[in-house]
């Protein structure tokens, strides 16, 4: 698409300059525009017959249940390591008993949604891109069209919806396991007082913190699955291009998660003002 527009662009004077500037600008807008279109059509197809519940359940299993082991593993160690670093910092002031509150809060607001999103991008996002990419190059996507089945409805919608539903669930799992890891480290290795750990955690965190984390997680789920589906769905060529698409899906998914995180934090902070 982009190459074509460059080839046909007029090469005279001001027009040429415009074309030179125009091509990258067009391709940036095209990139975001194509993603937006795909997201909208995926949602439009959600409300169109036929409804294939099984496809959604399959994808929810793939994104959720399939990612459970890795989320538990990463969650445990992330909780433990953040307890470790927090205690090191708090020791300076002799306030180690705040470790439960600090780790709990940072897990709820940042660590759990972001780490879960990155792990799901690496596991499920890459899987989606590879699967869709190889379906494309082996003409399975064309085959769907010949049976008058919309590939977007059949392939994209279930993946995006499943990611949006399962990301908050997996984030909660991450929270629980992470806190458990922090608890074990603090109580058994650093001899922090159990009562203080629990009481300060309860005092400092609020259900709305978990709600914020959940909202972030849902948005991340949409972003990472959209990036994966877009890259996989639009593969042209052969096995090499499928590999490249998978790489791009993981990079685009991770980057968009981290960038979105900043803006979402900013936005959510105005909706959920910090109470003191």
């Amino acid at each position: 698409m982009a190459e074509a527009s460059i080839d046909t662009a007029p090469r005279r004077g001001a027009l040429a300059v415009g074309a030179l500037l125009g091509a990258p600008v067009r391709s940036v807008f095209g990139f975001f525009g194509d993603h937006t279109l795909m997201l909208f059509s995926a949602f439009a197809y959600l409300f169109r017959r036929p409804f294939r519940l099984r496809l959604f359940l399959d994808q929810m299993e793939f994104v959720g249940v399939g990612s459970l082991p890795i989320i538990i593993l990463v969650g445990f160690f992330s909780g433990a390591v953040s307890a470790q670093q927090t205690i090191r910092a708090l020791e300076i002031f002799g306030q180690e008993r705040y470790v439960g509150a600090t780790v709990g809060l940072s897990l709820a607001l940042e660590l759990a949604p972001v780490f879960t999103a990155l792990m799901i991008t690496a596991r499920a996002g890459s899987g989606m891109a590879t699967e869709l990419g190889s379906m494309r190059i082996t003409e399975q996507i064309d085959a769907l069209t010949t049976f008058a089945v919309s590939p977007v409805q059949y392939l994209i919608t279930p993946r995006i919806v499943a990611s949006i539903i399962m990301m908050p669930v997996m984030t909660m799992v991450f929270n629980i396991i992470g806190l458990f890891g922090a608890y074990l480290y603090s109580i058994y290795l650093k001899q922090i007082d159990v009562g203080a750990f629990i009481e300060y955690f309860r005092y400092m965190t609020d259900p709305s913190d978990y709600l914020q984390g959940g909202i972030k997680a849902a948005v991340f789920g949409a972003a990472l699955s959209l990036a994966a589906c877009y890259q996989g769905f639009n593969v042209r060529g052969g096995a090499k291009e499928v590999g490249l698409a998978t790489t791009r899906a993981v990079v685009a998914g991770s980057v968009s998660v981290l960038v979105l995180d900043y803006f979402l934090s900013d936005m959510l902070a105005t909706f959920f003002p910090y109470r003191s």
Partner: protein
Amino acid sequence: METAPQRRPSRGSLATPAVVASSAAGQDEGATRKTAPPQKRGGEGAPPGKPEEPTDQYQIRVRGLNKTFGPQHVLRGVDLDIERGKINIVIGGSGQGKSVLMKHLMGLLKPDSGQILVDGEDIVPMNDLALGKLRRKFGMVFQYAALFDSQNVVENIAFPLIERYHLSREEVMTRVRDLLKRLDLANVGGIEQKFPAELSGGQRKRVGLARALIDRPKILLYDEPTTGLDPVATKNVDDMILQTSRDFGVTSVVISHDMASTFRIADKISMLYDGKILITGTPAELMRSAHAPLREFIDMAGLRRDEDGKAAAPEARK
């Protein structure tokens, strides 16, 4: 992916008057003449340029089909008639737009201009809903079968039925089993529960054919069915196409660049060259033709002419 024709013919060679100018003559095309020798022409007589009445002889008629992809003008006024119940083969080199043409027949691509009449109905202006209905007339056999990896053989074959109708499980299974039997797949142990990755290339092709046939299509499209197969497997696929055409009474459209196989099974051959149909005729007529690009194609394939002008392919058609 189809690309623009790489080899441009010298205009002179194309302008050589063909054997007999023909069929869609009067279609105000350019230098290229169609050379379809006189043969049964049931659908002739309608004034050129107008949409002809559907006749029994032709299932699909393509008129003046144009398609560009960006700067590439892939199809430049294709006129093609597909005969009902026959095996129609479109030959042409790589990148000449054969697949693009085939995708147009099913409405998977929209042409820039031109008409595609399927049973007399112009499919070009149709919307998605109408196209969905139209596609029930078609079955497509993909080059590498394009079976769904995540579904087993039965689910693959039943896919069109399940997506299109509300049938009971028993009815679906009866039709699937019946088709497996007719395509010589029933004797493969445990085939119903196998996944595409566990099948051999030939079995996969047959399962792909079964999936295309399950909804009893009127027209079967084959996308380069013999590409990448060894001679024995090619022969098997040829037999499969012949048998399917005979047993199921479907109209077959095959795109191919395998000349040996083409001359073995075709009722009618059309050559796509430089975005147009260069010549159309029976295998014997094509063998006699002196068209330069066609001759090159035939000679390179190592086929010889015998005295009657019949293809001396090893397995001549009965």
